[in-house]
């Protein structure tokens, strides 16, 4: 499916292109050496030449991010449903959850590495941690947003708890869930990379540290480009899923 570039996208895209051109020109005009700030053209070149080197690291990072993200979805669903159906639990835990969000993940990451070693597990855990809370909080808000009158009506028709969860609670929480998922989707890659940054044997974070130490600044930048593309890709997948799962949200109103 080919899409035309809409006028809405035109503005940011041209702005980015202008910025890149400015960057390219300034490295030429002021003769900035490649080990300080490589030109965009150089970064692209490296991206292709060093790709085979980066490939296993990309796979490693993607794997950690994906597993962390998936586990975060499962865990936040379980937690959200428990909290939503037992008000006391929600009352007790909710403030704690909000407070925990003030702790920077980078300060916790080394502890997790110490506790769980240098393998894949601590990266998954860190990705899980950063993804968990946005999903949980959006789900909780979504579950709390359901119309009590609607639930009463269905109860008066003899609907049981499971029917109401499936047909009312879940669908009305979906728009909220997806706003959380979109945030978490990009966080998942970041979480995995933070984990690798603190201590790893593979992954894009590890690749960046290695490149930085050897003054391959162009490789660091190539890795950044890859990370950006991966994050955008995951974000896009979530957006596509959103459309698939909530067709009613994307319908034009009163189109008859």
């Amino acid at each position: 499916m080919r899409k035309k570039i809409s006028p809405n996208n035109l503005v940011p895209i041209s702005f980015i292109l202008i910025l890149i051109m400015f960057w390219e020109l300034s490295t030429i005009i002021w003769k900035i050496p490649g080990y300080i700030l490589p030109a965009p053209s150089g970064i692209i070149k490296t991206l292709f030449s060093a790709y085979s080197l980066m490939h296993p690291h990309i796979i490693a990072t993607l794997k950690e991010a994906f597993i962390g993200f998936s586990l975060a979805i499962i865990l936040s669903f379980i937690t959200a449903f428990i909290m939503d159906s037992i008000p006391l639990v929600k009352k007790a835990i909710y403030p704690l959850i909000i407070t925990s969000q003030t702790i920077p993940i980078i300060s916790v990451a080394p502890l997790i590495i110490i506790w769980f070693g240098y393998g894949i597990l601590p990266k998954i855990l860190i990705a899980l941690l950063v993804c968990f809370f946005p999903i949980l909080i959006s789900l909780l808000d979504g579950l709390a947003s359901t119309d009590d009158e609607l639930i009463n009506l269905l109860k008066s028709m003899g609907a049981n708890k499971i029917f109401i969860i499936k047909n009312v609670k879940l669908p009305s929480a979906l728009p909220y869930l997806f706003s959380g998922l979109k945030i978490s989707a990009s966080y998942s890659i970041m979480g995995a990379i933070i984990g690798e940054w603190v201590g790893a044997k593979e992954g894009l974070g590890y690749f960046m540290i290695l490149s930085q130490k050897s003054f391959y600044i162009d490789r660091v930048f190539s890795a950044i480009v890859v990370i950006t593309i991966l994050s955008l890709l995951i974000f896009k997948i979530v957006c596509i899923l959103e459309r698939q799962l909530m067709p009613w949200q994307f319908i034009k109103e009163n189109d008859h």
Partner: protein
Amino acid sequence: MKAIEVTGINKSFGDLEVLDNISILVEKNHFVSILGPSGCGKSTLFNIISGLQLPDSGRILINGKDFKGKTGRISYMHQKDLLLPWKTVLDNVCIPLILKKIPLPDARKTAVGYFKSFGLEGFEDAYPSQLSGGMRQRAALLRTFLFASDIMMLDEPFGALDAITRSKMHLWLMNICSKYQPSVLFITHDIDEAILLSDKIYLFTKRPARIKKTIGVNIPRPRSQDVLTSSQFQALKAEVINLLYEEAEENGNNLGNNMSL
């Protein structure tokens, strides 16, 4: 035959006395309205009759059987359409059938059969957000109807519609009623609507709601919009308005508030 018979219903929420000795009778196949100011306790009475809430005292008989605190017998429609935005119109109206354990394909087949009478033909696969206000209320009414077509309670179903749509809905509803002969208990605060649609009107006082007067409407059916200008209609309307004046004077309240029921 008595479809709904409630006797001596009292209900308070804490110190707030809402219903004071309410007794109502809906004969089989009759259309009975409750006309009363907002906040007087009409919806509370419906919640009690439908079994969602318990009265402090009183009896609720449906087709002669005790239904106090038991849900699932009479269908109940609210002012809000309460359609599920994520289900198509067809699947929305199928919900009561699904809840009665009818398999989805059979439920759909049954429901589709009514789409024409309910003015929803061609909108089976549309989402509620694609319908006009009037169509949404008709869809909600079809859902109500599919839950229990013999006895229905409608709580200000047209309250949110504009005047023109509402008067079309009145004619349509009278049509549906003459076709399917349900027993209907109807809440409204619109005097014209109450007289036009009903066989009998219970006029409620302000909270705590008591029955101020029971008014029989003997205008012959089928009724059309012309009824609104007939002398019989005007006489009934005058009677209702006089009763409201009385109410207002008894309460020493300014009339404006009470007229705007």
